[in-house]
């Protein structure tokens, strides 16, 4: 049965298996002026993330006395979508900025940098489905690139439902035409889900299948993130955690 599950006859619009990720590529240290940065391609998503900090918070009254603050900004280039979108941030962008922050915060040793701020800026240059998960994947690598001590990496991808099938890592078309989309972010070593949203209709069983499949996807992405960091730093697993 497990083989049937993996080798279904059902083909997705781009030829993938139900449990197959889109091609993914992460590169770190791509922005000379940022303290840390990463570039990700995940399907047709093309995203740059720059991390600045820990640095002084302005205005000072917004600083937290015993921990670092995280500010996240999810921003889409006007040419990243079809049709062109206005450069002004939408309510959707505001919400995604917030859930990105909640997805990343649990992985960062915030208490080590009281009163300071870490800015995470994600620029979506081209948008396929699942931009928020791709942003989280790149932001994690950029945070490590910035030398910010992390409890764990945060890996993220979505699962969902289309044509009554539970599928992994929805592309643009599946996002629009599918029955449900469940973006998840996961810290593999700590075993914690730090992002979970859902849009569409699922039975509770299907929902649990989606979460489980998305976590499987996160585990694969986690390895890709580690490769991206090893390539640059030759970090061992322990070093990533403890750095």
């Amino acid at each position, binding site marked *: 049965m497990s083989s049937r599950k993996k080798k279904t006859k059902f083909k997705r619009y781009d030829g993938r298996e139900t449990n197959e990720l889109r091609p993914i590529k992460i590169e770190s240290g791509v922005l000379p002026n940022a303290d840390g940065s990463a570039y990700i391609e995940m399907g047709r998503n093309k995203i740059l993330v720059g991390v600045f900090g820990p640095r002084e918070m302005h205005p000072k009254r917004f600083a*937290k006395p015993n921990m670092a603050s995280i500010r996240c900004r999810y921003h889409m280039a006007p040419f990243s979508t079809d*049709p062109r979108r206005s450069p002004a941030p939408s309510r959707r962008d505001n919400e995604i900025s917030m*859930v990105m922050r*909640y997805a990343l915060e649990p992985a960062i040793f915030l208490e080590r940098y009281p009163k300071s701020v870490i800015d995470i800026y994600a620029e979506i240059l081209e948008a396929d489905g699942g931009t928020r998960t791709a942003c989280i994947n790149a932001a994690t690598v950029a945070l490590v690139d910035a030398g910010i001590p992390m409890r764990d990496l945060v890996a993220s991808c979505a699962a969902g439902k289309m044509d009554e099938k539970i599928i992994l890592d929805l592309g643009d078309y599946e996002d629009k035409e599918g029955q449900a989309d469940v973006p998840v972010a996961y810290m593999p070593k700590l075993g914690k889900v*730090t992002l*979970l949203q859902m849009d569409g209709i*699922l039975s509770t069983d299907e*929902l649990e299948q989606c979460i489980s499949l998305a976590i499987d996807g996160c585990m694969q992405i986690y390895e890709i993130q580690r490769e991206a960091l090893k390539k640059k730093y030759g970090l061992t697993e322990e070093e990533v955690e403890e750095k």
Partner: protein
Amino acid sequence: MSSRHNIVSRLKRKKIKEVITSGKRMDGRSLEDYREIVVKTGVLEKAEGSAEVLLGNTRVLVGVKIGIGHPFEDTPDKGVLMCNAEFTPIASPNFEPGPPREQSIELARVVDRGLRSAEIVDFSKLSLIPGKQVYLIHVDLYVLNYDGNLIDASALAAIAALKVAKRPVYKVEEGEIKLTKRKQSLKVRKTPVAVTLVKIDDTLLVDPSADEEEVMDARLTVTLDEDENVCAIQKSGSEGFTPDEIKKCIKIALEKAAENRQKL
């Protein structure tokens, strides 16, 4: 609301956490108890639909206004539903007048996703001239007093207001749109209900008060329809949930959604 971080004193925080860890709550509720829920509908005359929900001291008024206007570009032959939330400054000394912030945007979007995913109305029947003029349903969530768990209260008030809403009937005559004198129900076919849980020191509890929200580690909202289908989920807060905790939350939400749906 970051300033609230300093408002509940350290001692109070400690006290809240202690009580919760022992399986009780400051106001005497058990971990899986909601506060009293009161739903009043038809509380406004100028709105096409309205409802007020009291959830303990949390108070949300929802007005539904229905007019006509342009469809969204990607659904030219469907009516449009839009949620907007306002945290009025009378609701809390920590709310300030002005344009919506992060939290009110999240509130509107989570309620909106629940209504939209559940396909509460047949939007394809709310088109007048496809691509040009369709019915617009504005659902305005108006927070009048804040004592935690705005999502559940607002979602309940929204669906209650939509259920009683009567839309003006327009007709198309030779390409011109005319308002008739008739009113018609929106024919709401689903009743999504949101259930919010928070985690405090590894304890899960439903329907958090303002104080509990302030000390919480993470929050999870699960919205379910009457067929036990999930139609929206939103995780929030600076900690994670284990997959088992999530399962437990879904189970509790399934039960509580059914209970709260009875209040409508």
